[in-house]
């Protein structure tokens, strides 16, 4: 008898779960950049809390993967940490896809050093030369006579990707650069190491590290928004045509004050 009850209970649970999935038939597929992923994921969770009958699935894979999926029609929103390339837009036109860009957040990178470092600022080119191995001592950029300890991030991180694109350009990262696995780890190491230089997302700045002016501009929310700070980029959501219905309400949610608060919580700079 008891076994029968158990079987019945399991069957009932399966039915309930399946039913739940069935009910959430209004769904949105989001695919793309691992940088934008945490923003999209957190926004989707909050959005689904408010609208119980909506199901949003967010997948990573990289900006290119997301854009390809949008052009193939296999996702509703592509998240990307770079604007679409001309070839991608042309490819879309051939297939009748008309991608529309929505800038949902800004990503700023601060160059940080140990608090005891007397240096005030560097140019983008000096930072590039430090990271490519052409400059090895702080005195070469007007600082103390001390070896520069170069700290970088793993190539899987969005911050590395942004740094690579905004600072290194085509240059190769020096071999002896340290590789750390998180913004937090970089901040901790810089705070402990007198000769160190590193880069972290704006959201991770703290008094234990000193951020440098880049080309004379101090990194901050304001300088990123007014585009005077150079080490910043936009993060995008792409839709096919102007979003309508459910898609529109999700994008509007991301751009709403509540959505932009999530952007800030994830360590990025809100658009407004």
């Amino acid at each position, binding site marked *: 008898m008891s076994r029968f009850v158990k079987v019945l209970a399991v069957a009932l649970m399966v039915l309930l779960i399946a039913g739940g999935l069935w009910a959430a038939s209004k769904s949105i597929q989001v695919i793309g950049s691992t940088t934008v992923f945490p923003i999209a994921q957190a926004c989707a969770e909050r959005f689904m809390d408010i609208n119980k009958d909506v199901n949003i699935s967010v997948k990573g894979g990289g900006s290119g993967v997301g854009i390809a999926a949008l052009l193939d029609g296999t996702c509703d929103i592509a998240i990307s940490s770079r604007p679409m390339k001309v070839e991608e837009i042309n490819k879309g036109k051939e297939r009748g896809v008309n991608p529309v860009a929505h800038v949902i957040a800004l990503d700023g990178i601060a160059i940080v050093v140990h608090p005891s470092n007397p240096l005030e600022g560097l140019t983008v080119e000096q930072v590039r030369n430090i990271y490519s191995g052409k400059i090895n001592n702080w005195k070469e950029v007007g600082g103390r006579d001390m070896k520069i300890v170069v700290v970088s991030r793993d190539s899987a991180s969005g911050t590395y990707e942004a740094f690579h694109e905004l600072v290194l350009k085509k240059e190769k990262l020096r071999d002896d650069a340290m590789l750390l696995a998180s913004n937090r780890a970089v901040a901790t*190491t810089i705070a402990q190491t007198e000769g160190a230089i590193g880069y972290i997302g704006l959201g991770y700045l703290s008094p234990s590290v000193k951020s440098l002016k880049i080309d004379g501009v101090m990194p901050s929310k304001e300088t990123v928004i007014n585009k005077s700070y150079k080490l910043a980029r936009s993060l995008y959501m792409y839709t096919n045509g102007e979003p309508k219905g459910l898609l529109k309400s999700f994008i509007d949610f991301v751009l709403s004050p509540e959505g932009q608060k999530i952007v800030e919580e994830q360590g990025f700079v809100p658009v407004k």
Partner: protein
Amino acid sequence: MGEKLAKTIILTSAFLSIAALMGVSVMLFKEGIPFFLRVSPLDFLLGGSWHPTYNPPEFGILPIVIGTIVVTFGALLVGIPLGLASATYLAFFAPLSLREVLKPILEILACIPSVVYGFFGMVILGPLIIKLFSVSVGLNAFNASLVLGIMIVPLVTSTAEDAMSLVPYDLLEASYALGATKWRTIVYVVVPTAWPGILSSILLGMGRAIGETMTVLMVAGGAASIPRSIFDPVRTMTATIAAEMGEAPFRSLHYHALFAIGAILFLITVLLNFVAERFAKRMIFQ
């Protein structure tokens, strides 16, 4: 009915672990081999620079292999003496009451998640190393060796202690009867008899040190260049895979290269375990 069910469950779970192992090895080699169709194994193993995301990419893992070797042997230098000494103490010198306290403590040490060890190495050991040795970086091969060395102590201790306790009592008594001291007995009777077990404990510790990922990712510093001293930051094979797999495009050359590293690591650990197992078996049949 109940027994049959239990039997089936046990059989399935035993089979599942074999299937998982098979799956892992098939996957590793299936995804790793395509890499060697495009890059020669010699360039891969002896190449001095690792720049997988550049154009054109460079896939030389020599600095990473050397980093792995340096950290592993450093860990053995720290962990083996500590482990064997505490095994000897536990097996022959510790009073029963103390032994009953020490063994559980060692087991707890073995249960601490590696990320906690990594945190310890990063926040406490790192700054200490900078101060004590006046070097420029605290996250380096030395730091990783120390932390990994401490991590392998419980494994080495418990395996070696098992081997030492298995030495037949007749042998010990014969030695004592001849007037040998406890220390002489350990050196001339216990160690030679338990040697296969001791060696297998060392090999197991080595396997653990090579395979450890999170800790070295956090404390070794991660520079993919050949270290000039033990105070230089290094990168290991495991840390490379963990750090880069997330963003390597699916089925790209970079992705296959990471699997190739994984396959090499897999071969090394299987070989170590196999040898360790052989020694442990020889011990039992003696």
